[in-house]
């Protein structure tokens, strides 16, 4: 059985369930307690679990993440919220040089069961320092896991898996998805979504559309438009986690459709699309009827003006056009 929840509510449930289940789970972040979270994801948790387990922190991203690493090394399961992914840049040393590296560089003597939760994405006219889509940055780092849920059910299931994982997870939510509604299995049903398992949102034979985070939904809507207006049946694949990546599902889909479009909100150079395109042509070259096409955020710092911002973020029409270009001259 399931019910309709918003993405943020599904995350809240996941946190609540795991806090109840495991005494060593601990939350740290700016405004997560008294204020109930900048995006209300941690609403009510301070009230239920107290200020020892739900800790408001000063604005010290690097040290708070570092404390999360240290606490994870010595017996806790900390979940650090970085208010938005833009501020994760301040904590990159702790994320890359400590969280991702410690298990490996210390020869496997210790593990770092840390979750860093942070939303990404633009679209609210927040300007260049507050609109980043950084999934590709963390995808780049060995030693991390990277989750990019696009639906409430996946948000809950992947977060629970992340918290129980013994490895550091960068759990990337999306500001524009927090209000999205979706079906989520009932409480009491242990709903875990494994890492490394993509979801096929829609089956089709003509072209594969791969979208991450919010772009998974954009791709989905583009597929509907392709079917309704062009009679083209697109297969929509949502990777759900970028590390580990379910390459098998992606390759199987491209071998079936012979065409692929990757949609991401981030910048093109070294982006998710670049990585996937490389992998796809490595594993499915002889099945390609067209080059892999990427639809990405514009290669500029995110501008403020509405018209400019709109032009800088991929939309359904861009994905539709990209899909058509693999099939015929557009």
């Amino acid at each position, binding site marked *: 059985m399931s019910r309709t929840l918003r993405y943020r509510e599904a995350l809240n449930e996941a946190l609540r369930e795991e806090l109840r289940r495991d005494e*060593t789970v*601990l939350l740290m972040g700016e405004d997560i307690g008294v204020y109930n979270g900048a995006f209300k994801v941690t609403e009510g948790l301070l009230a239920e679990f107290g200020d*020892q387990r739900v*800790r408001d*922190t*000063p604005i*010290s991203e*690097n*040290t*708070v*993440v*570092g*404390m*999360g*690493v*240290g*606490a*994870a*090394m*010595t*017996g*806790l399961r*900390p979940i650090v919220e970085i208010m938005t992914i833009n501020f994760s840049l301040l904590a990159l*040393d*702790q994320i890359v*040089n*400590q969280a991702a590296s*410690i*298990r*490996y*560089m*210390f*020869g*496997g*003597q*210790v*593990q770092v*069961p840390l979750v860093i939760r942070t939303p990404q994405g633009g679209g609210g006219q927040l300007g260049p320092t507050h609109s980043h889509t950084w999934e590709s940055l963390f995808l780049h780092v*060995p*030693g991390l*896991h990277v989750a990019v849920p696009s639906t409430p059910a996946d948000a809950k299931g992947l977060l629970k898996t992340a918290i129980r*994982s*013994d*490895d550091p997870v960068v759990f990337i939510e999306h500001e524009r998805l927090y209000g999205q509604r979706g079906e989520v299995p009932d409480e009491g049903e242990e709903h875990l979504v494994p*890492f*490394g398992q993509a979801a096929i949102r829609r089956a089709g034979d003509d072209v594969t559309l791969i979208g991450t985070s919010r772009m998974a939904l954009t791709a989905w809507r583009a597929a509907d438009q392709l079917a309704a207006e062009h009679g083209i049946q697109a297969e929509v694949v949502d990777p759900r986690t970028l*590390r*580990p*990546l379910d390459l098998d599902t992606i390759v199987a889909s491209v071998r079936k459709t012979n065409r692929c479009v990757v949609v991401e909100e981030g910048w093109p150079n070294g982006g998710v699309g670049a990585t996937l395109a490389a992998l796809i042509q490595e594993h499915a070259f002889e099945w390609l009827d067209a080059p892999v096409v990427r639809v990405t955020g514009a290669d500029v710092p995110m501008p403020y003006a509405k018209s400019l911002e709109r032009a800088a973020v991929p939309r359904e029409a861009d994905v539709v056009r990209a899909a058509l270009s693999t099939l015929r001259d557009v």
Partner: protein
Amino acid sequence: MFAAVMADHPLPDAGVATEWLQAMHLIRRFEERASELYAQGRIGGFLHVSTGEEATIIGSVRALRETDYLVSTYRAHGHTLARGSEPGRVMAELLGRVDGLCRGRAGSTHLFDGARRFMGGYGIVGAHLPLAAGFALAADRLGTQDVTLCQFGDGASNQATFGEALNLAALWSLPVVFMVTNNRFAAADAQDKESSTKDLVKRAKGFGVKALRCDGMDVVQTHDVTAEALAVAREERRPMLVEARTYRFRGHSAADPDEERTAEQLEEWRRRDPLVTFGDRLVKAGILDDERRGWLDRDAIARIDEAVAFAEASPEPDPQTLADDLYAGSGR
């Protein structure tokens, strides 16, 4: 100036005191040997030695309980040895061999011995201060009485993590002792060129952290002051800062020049060699004679010889193991 202070800190009993001197000799001889191997090109990358800081290290580490956490910088050979790591395994790590503490993954910069609660070994200046606060947080949450001792140099006190970690430790009442080894010089720059507030005790106070000071060249004083700070952290559940004033006998790392120091300064501090001053004190107290003292040193040399032999006999890691231990789970 320091003599008066010495009188306030009596020697521990003979056996303990002798062990301290022995441990200091072990560090000294290890660091000398490591420097030789580095000059020969058999140790690669960075080599940061603790020559001259033996008193700070032994004094402070001997104040720790077995279950307390110790975390330090990239200059940590002395710390691992002090905590009881086998010299052979430390040397093997420096040589990048399979039997090294970290199986050759870490080298000199990132030593780690989890079983002895030596928590690393970090290459980025100041990066481990947050980790230390994290260890203290976990100890607190798990209800243990363990305290974390976090050592770093004065250069790190200008990294953002210094302020952030002290602030958070004070805010959250974390049982952690931040110990600054003030060697007066960070890399090639004198401290005077780095810090607007040169007094570290004052700086700590600005973040709400009480501080103590000790002579880092005096192993007994360092021990006592550290013990006091640890006790405050353990019982009163709050952070402390200890400034240990020391002098490094060589450049910042084995590859750096000694240019900034004047010849007189160098000579003065050589008179302050902690092995000499402490050894003299033990002899004066009748605990040691010169012969036994000589034996201690030769014993240290012999143990280091063994360590090098062990390390050299250990194989280099197989490239097939390159991806081992990247994840604890089955992730990719």
